[in-house]
Each structure stands twice: as C-alpha cells, then as structure tokens.
C-alpha cells in the first residue's frame, strides 16, 4: 500500500440539501430498516433497462451524470444529486466550507434552452425576490424567470429575441 492510499471503513452519500446517508464497507447489498435487512439488487435486462429491485418492486434507475465523487441519479423518475465522501474528505469539506465567505452576488442563469422573449429589468433596477426578470420561451411555453433574491441588477446579459442555452448567464444581481 502506498502513501496515496487510505483505509476506509465507511462512506457517506450527501444530498444537495446536506442530508447524509452512511454505508459501511465493504458495501452490502442490503439496507437495514429497523430490525430487518432488506435485499437490494441492481439489475438490468432488455425490457426494463437498468433497475433496482427492492421489496419485490422494480424501480427504474438512470445514471445521469457522474464526475469525480459526484453522482446525479434518476431513481423512479426523480433526480438526486449525491457527493460520496470518506470520513476524511468529509472533514476537509467542512473546513473548506467554513472558510468560504458568504456570496455577494447572484447569477441568474437560463434553467432551460430557449428564446428570450422579454427582459423586464435594466442595469441599476432593484428587484425583489420572486419578481420576474426575464421571459424565456421554450417548448411553446413562456416561462417567467424569477429573481431568487432581493438586490440590484448589476449586469444584463440577456437580449430580446436571442436564443440561449441551458445555464447561460442572463442577469447578475448584487445582494
């Protein structure tokens, strides 16, 4: 064993809301609920594709993205994002997070690809949380993009009648 390796007895799966699930290693193919262990099977066949079999029920699963220790999983049509951490990396993450300063600006990004129909704010406008800032049309629906924060608009990138991709910056707001 080299210096680069670390003995691990446990792994944590953290949700984006920082909810923590812990699993002992080696990873068992069962999950304990109360006093009973229930078998979990990851299976795949031609008819259903990949699915998890648990308590006699099939749940469709898809791995949407995985990067480093981050996984986006579609389980029964609901997506979950986890970061898998060892006790060591979890500790380091906590330290890093406490060192981080609080955010001062909010970037409003396009939640989906589409076309900008209207821009409702200008640089210097003050906006309230929940106020629409941009109207984006996608799939025949007009979507109001709302400001998630109270603040002042510092930059307007969105232009009327232009197409945007998912996650393109639309508006910057100073808190």
């Amino acid at each position: 064993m080299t210096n680069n390796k670390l003995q691990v007895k446990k792994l944590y799966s953290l949700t984006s809301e920082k909810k923590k699930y812990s699993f002992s290693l080696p990873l068992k193919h069962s999950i304990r609920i109360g006093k009973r262990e229930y078998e979990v099977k990851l299976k795949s066949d031609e008819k259903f594709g990949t699915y998890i079999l648990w308590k006699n029920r099939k749940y469709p699963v898809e791995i949407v993205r995985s990067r480093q220790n981050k996984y986006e999983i579609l389980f029964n049509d609901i997506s979950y994002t986890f970061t898998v951490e060892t006790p060591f990396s979890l500790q380091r993450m906590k330290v890093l997070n406490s060192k981080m300063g609080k955010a001062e600006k909010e970037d409003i990004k396009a939640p989906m690809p589409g076309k900008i129909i209207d821009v409702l704010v200008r640089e210097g406008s003050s906006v309230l949380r929940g106020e629409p800032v941009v109207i984006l049309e996608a799939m025949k629906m007009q979507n109001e993009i709302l400001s998630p924060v109270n603040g002042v608009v510092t930059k307007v990138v969105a232009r009327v009648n232009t197409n945007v991709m998912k996650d393109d910056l639309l508006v910057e707001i100073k808190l």
Partner: protein
Amino acid sequence: MKIKRILIANRGEIAVRIIKTARMMNIETVVIKTDLEPNAMYLSLADIIYDDTEEATEIPVFLNIEKLIEIAHKTKANAVHPGYGFLAENAYFAQKCNENKLIFIGPSPDAIYKMGNKTIARKIALAGGIPMAMGSEGNISNEEEAVVIAEKIGYPVIIKAASGGGGRGMRIVRKPEEMEKMFIIASKEAEKAFNDPSVFIEKYIENPKHIEFQILGDTKGNVIHLGERECSIQRKHQKLLEEAPSIALDENLRNRMGEMAVQIAKAVNYHSAGTVEFLLDSERNFYFMEMNTRIQVEHAVTETITGIDLIEQQIRIANGEALMFRQEDIKLNGWAIECRINAEDVQAGFAPAPGIIESLNLPSDPYIRIDTGVKAGSSIVANYDSMIVKLIVKGTDRKNAIKNCKMALDKVWIKGTKTTLPFFRMLVRHQKFQDGDFTTAFIEKDIEKYFLNSEYEEMLAAWLATKLFVEENLNDDSISIDFKNGKDMSPWLLNKRINQF
C-alpha cells in the same frame, strides 16, 4: 364516402390518432416528413409519406397554408385534417381548403372565425343569454383604458388575448398598480403568439373549476353534447389531467350546462366536433369562457365513457352525413382519467426537458388506453410541445378509476428524459384530489411538493451512488481509496470542484 385520402396537417400523437381511425374506415392517409423529426412514429403508420425534409424553412410546414394545399394536391388527397394546434383554428386555412376543393375536417371558416375572436364570441354568447363573467365590451386599446374598465368591473380582473387560446397572453391583475406592466406583457405576448395584440378584460373568477362540454354538430343543423370534462388540474393554464365526467356536476347541472353549450354552437351553425369551456364557481354558477373549434387533446376521456370515436364523427360530418346519435342516445358509462405525460422536469418547476427517449415501456391492461406519438429512439425536439404520452385510464366509478390510475402510473417506464410521471403519482394520492375538492388554483395553492418519492427512495438512490463510487475508486484487494488526484490539490481548487456541480 366522398373522403378517400386525408392529408394530416399535423404530427405526433394526434397524427397517429387520426391514422388509426382513418385506417378503420378504409380511408388513406398522407403525412409529412420534416427535417426536425425524420424518424417520427406517425410516419411509419401512414399510407403515403410526403418528404419535406429538403425544405429548411423558418416556419414549420404545419403552419404554411400554401404549402399544405400544394402537398394535398400533389399527393391527391381530397380532405385535410388539421388535428389540434398549428392551423386547427385558423379560419383562413379552412377557407383556403374549401376554395381548393379540399374537404376541411372541421367546422366552417365562419364558425372558426367567430369563436376564435373572443370579443365576437362574447357578443354572440351575450346575445344568446349565456351566463358570462362581466367584462369589457370590446378590445382595450391602452393601459389607461384598462385601468378605468378594471375599476368599473372590480379587481381581480383577467387580461386575455382576443385571438388567444391555450393560456397564452393571459394575465391576472389584482391591483391597479400592476395593471400597466401586465397590460404590456399580455399585449406583447398576444402579438407574438397570435399576430394580434388586441386584448380584452374580464372579471376574474377566483378559484373556479374548469368544466368543458364536448359537442358534435352536423351540416343539417343537428347539435348534441357528449357530457363534460373536468380540466381543473392545470398549471399556468396548461391542462395536466382531465376527467370525464366531473364530480362537481349532477344530472340537473349537466343538462343545463349542456343545453347552453348546444345553444352556443347552434348560434354559429357549428358543425364537426367542438368544445365549449365554462368556469364553475363555488356556488355552482357557471360562466361561458370560450369555444374551441377543434378536436381537443383530452378528447379521449369523452370517447372512453361514451364509446364514440370523435375522429370518426368528424370525418363522417365532413363527409356530409347526418349525426348518427340523438341527445337521448348518449349515455355516460364509468369514469375516465387522462394524465398528460410531458417531457418536463417537475423538480425544476415543470421546465421543459427535451431529449431522446432511450426506452419506453407502456402497459397494455384492458383498463388502460395509451395515445402516443413516440417510441424508443424518438427525439423530443424543443420546437414542439412537450407532451409525449397520454395515459387514459378507465374505472367503474371515480374511486376505481383513481385506483387503476395509481397502478397504471407505476407501469409506465420512460427513460432518457424526465417526465411529469412523479407529479401524477403524487396527485392521485393527494387527499383533496381523491375527494374531488380542487379548483384551477389547486396546483399553485394546495400542493407543497410537486412530486412523489417514498421515504426510502432517496436512501436507495444514495446506496446506488455509493456503489458506483466504490466500483470506480476502491481497489479490489483492499478497502482503500486512491487519493492521488485529490491529495495535492490546493484548497481553492478543491473548493471550486465541490461547488461546481
């Protein structure tokens, strides 16, 4: 039968639906292959495919009147079915078909025009003594006028596009201060969507139910109704789930509303299938909203409880036949529920989720009807609406239909894109939905979480993430993790990586 070959001026699920009935009636169908969907399902079912993939134009062929007429002539079709959306409610298109000796499977251009223009439709309804919400006499020309009229009617009011439909160009205004901004948005939206910026104002009925009546009329002046559909489960005026009949109506109210629907249709000499939409308030007063002069997306629930094929009736009526049924022949049997399974992300406020259908497993139980225009491998393009599957479930009564719907929803497996399935799984379990205690405000007001996930589903997903991590990172021989890539990383970089996802 005069109608020999129908050009379907549409795509997707409704094109498939029309082909099915045409085939049963021994009528040939022509469909159009476009460069956006060269492998679409509807193409594989038609008798004749017109290839339009070479034409890369800005507007879709389904909106190009001259081109459609030309295609009909080239393929020797003698009738045109517009489906829904696109040109289905375009009076000029119906007119052009008639002028070019093509049988338009739908109402007359005059009826489309009158009911399509909401201001004229209001006047017709008013003259016929149909109950309506108070509103402006005609179109409103500017925001100052809007403020004056709204003041007279009393807030809240709703601004609607005169040429509108489908929820676009509609804005609810609760306070005079909001009027200017909302008027401009509504008018701009109306211009963009319908090529007509004119809007009018109506009293906004708080928390109504959306109840619509299916009607059928022939060219001999006979009009009947096929009962109601309950379409109150909507989000931003987009219907998500429809039922037939409605729990809110009894026989008496059904007859009264049905008679009004028939009366409106007769006022414009309506023939073909049509839908009269009403709002029903908590005191069971009903108000005429609008008439849709086309086949509706949700027509299948009416077909399920009446046993009548509405597309067949449209074709027969267009063929000049008299109605096969009288009002007393229409019997409503059982209960039907339709879920619109859309490619949308319910976890992101129903944002459209275009993509490719990787796999599709649809149930085929006797109580289930599936109407779809997609198969495995189909791409859902952002240019069209997001509906991919209509799941229609039948039951002996409402309770039984909901139970069947619950089972059916777990049997629909769609991979490759997120869908509204988790929303419906939540909805059918919601107490208020089960009790029938809901209005058009239900989704915005009564639902805390837009999707269903059981207590253990997140945990199982966490287990899967952990399993994947173990497979990718742990050595076979020892329980250790290789940190080569992370160990010497600067805290700044690591921090960035953590927050990137």
